[in-house]
């Protein structure tokens, strides 16, 4: 995983106020995020800094929340468009999650054509899970072959949400959808499981970029959608350091909770403990004061 602890927040005020998301504006947000993150002025150079042209890139999204609270299809498709502008081949990209059913329910149209961007779940024909479990620390799981066989580089394009057990679900916990048995890893606030999963070779060796979908943030009673506790933030959060990016996402949720008079996750006894564990495993920086946070608008 990348070592830079720079995190970029890009907001586009009003992007949700129209009936359809302005894709050009969304792409502009992504370009701004990637260029600031890599300190490059052009998207081609930014993409080149993160990926090699021959990479097969997996965009792991989170569709467990259905159409109302999943990584939005507009965002996933915009990201693939920007990456293609940056020099990657669309046919070498796959937008993926656990199942075709969940992808459809979240508004995605499945695509498996050889020459196009692909969108499918691990349960699609030709995909599936590895047949032998990989044992790493406390993790023992079958990994999606999309991650292990198809892709050479991985993006976690997660939706940012409060999570009753984990505290926060963001870029790191999104990889629970890359294994066959995530239900086994929710004990003890998902700690150390989220961190150890991300430290396991299939993920650690391929993860390159985290992008958090914070267009609408479920800041309380997640991960399910509760409209009374979901707030439009109209932002995206970018980071090469997965721990730093999720730490910034957590701080955003805490700010929203404080603004609504809700107790903090720490006060509720469920801060995302796994971030500290991830830091101890060398995955990144969980100390907010040590992060370089850049806030931009489009």
């Amino acid at each position, binding site marked *: 995983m990348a070592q830079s602890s720079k995190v970029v927040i890009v907001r586009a005020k009003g992007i949700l106020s129209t009936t359809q998301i302005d894709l050009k504006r969304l792409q502009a947000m992504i370009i701004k995020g990637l260029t600031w993150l890599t300190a490059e002025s052009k998207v081609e150079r930014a993409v080149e800094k993160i990926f090699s042209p021959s990479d097969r890139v997996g965009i792991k999204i989170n569709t467990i929340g*259905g159409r109302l609270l999943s990584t939005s299809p507009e965002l996933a498709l915009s990201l693939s468009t920007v990456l293609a502008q940056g020099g990657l081949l669309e046919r070498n990209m796959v937008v993926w999650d656990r199942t075709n059913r969940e992808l459809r329910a979240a508004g995605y149209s499945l695509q498996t054509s050889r020459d196009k961007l692909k969108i499918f779940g*691990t349960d699609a024909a030709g995909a599936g899970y590895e047949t032998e*479990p990989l044992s790493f620390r406390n993790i023992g799981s*079958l990994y999606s072959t999309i991650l292990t066989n198809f892709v050479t580089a991985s993006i976690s394009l997660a939706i940012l949400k409060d999570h009753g057990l984990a505290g926060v679900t963001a870029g790191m916990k999104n990889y629970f959808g890359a294994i066959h048995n995530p239900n*086994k890893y929710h004990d003890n606030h998902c700690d150390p499981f989220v961190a150890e999963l991300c430290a396991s070779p299939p993920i650690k060796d391929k993860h390159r970029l985290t992008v958090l979908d914070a267009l609408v943030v479920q800041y309380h009673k997640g*991960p399910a959608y509760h409209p009374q506790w979901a707030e439009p933030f109209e932002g995206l959060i970018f980071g090469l350091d997965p721990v730093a990016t999720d730490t910034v996402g957590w701080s955003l949720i805490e700010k929203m909770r404080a603004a609504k008079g809700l107790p903090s996750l720490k006060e509720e006894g469920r801060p995302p403990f796994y971030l500290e564990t991830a830091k101890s495993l060398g995955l990144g920086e969980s100390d907010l004061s040590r992060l370089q946070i850049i806030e931009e608008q489009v």
Partner: protein
Amino acid sequence: MKRRHFLQLAGFSCLPLSPIKSAAGLLFPLGQNQANLSKVEARFYEKLPDREIKCNLCPRFCHLGDKERGYCGVRENDGGIYYSLVYGKVCALNVDPIEKKPFFHFLPGTQALSLATAGCNVNCKFCQNWQISQVRPEQVEAVDLSPQAVALAAENNSCPSVAYTYTEPVIFFEYMVDTSIAARKKGIRNVVVTGGHINPEPLEALIKVVDAIKVDLKSFSEAFYKDYVRGELKPVLEAIKLINQRKTWLEIVYLVIPTLNDQESMIRQMCRWLIKEVGEDVPLHFSRFHPMYLLKNLPPTPVSTLEKLHAVAREEGLRYVYIGNVPGHKAESTYCPFCGQLLIERIGYKVERFELRNGRCRFCQAVIPGIWV
């Protein structure tokens, strides 16, 4: 096993039965099938505010938000109602000798229609059936079998019992209970093979409809349960006590894993507890471990270790102690604890000799506890 074999077994075909495969032979490649999930409201859960629920079936007490699944992976909160996703979704179905469960004092020499759905409420690193127990129901192929169809299949296949086994039957509690009721209506008995992670209230409900329970006691150490089972020992011991108090036939299996749970002192402690709480007549099976799942770095249990622990248990006073997974070993057989005569000779899962008459030793007339044919 192909779908048609399931259907044959279930009695939906007049074709003769195909050879029965082992549980491992029933597995399907993961990720190649469409979801086949039930939506039957679960029992033993509480509705909470904001569409949350708390499951009271097992000692995990999963507290789940909307759209979340329990640790077992087969029970899901949908809009504040908790559902079983595996009711009638059978992923493994066999006619097995009852000795394979193992039950040695329950209808020996008979066959049990044995079934499972996907899922488990623990995560043993040494699981022998992990391909069906440690997966979500979407990840294995399943066939729809109603409780009535299971009872009919048992009858058609001359099975005097239905066994809920292979995975962890507690997680398909609703289906197990309803099937047990349907089987009993046909005079067929029900046996459960479980890790014993179940709360007292549902266990009481289960005991009312089943005839025998085999508990896998995986260690006598909480630390072992935490590290290798992802569960707790205490509720398992409570379940064993309750099963015994209700006079449901009980047998205990202990899988002996080299270096991890084979300490003589711990076995002595466990045997003393069993004698105190359950009695000296409870059958105890020491099973041989084979490297599986996440514990492939250990060798199979040496037979000498099993023999040593067998001797320890006998020394402590347990009367019916067995060695399992060592075909042909003399400790597979039942001996009269009073006159020492061989009463039930077993080779593998086959009963070769049966010297009980009306539940008594044919030689000294001592009563041998069990449910006999």
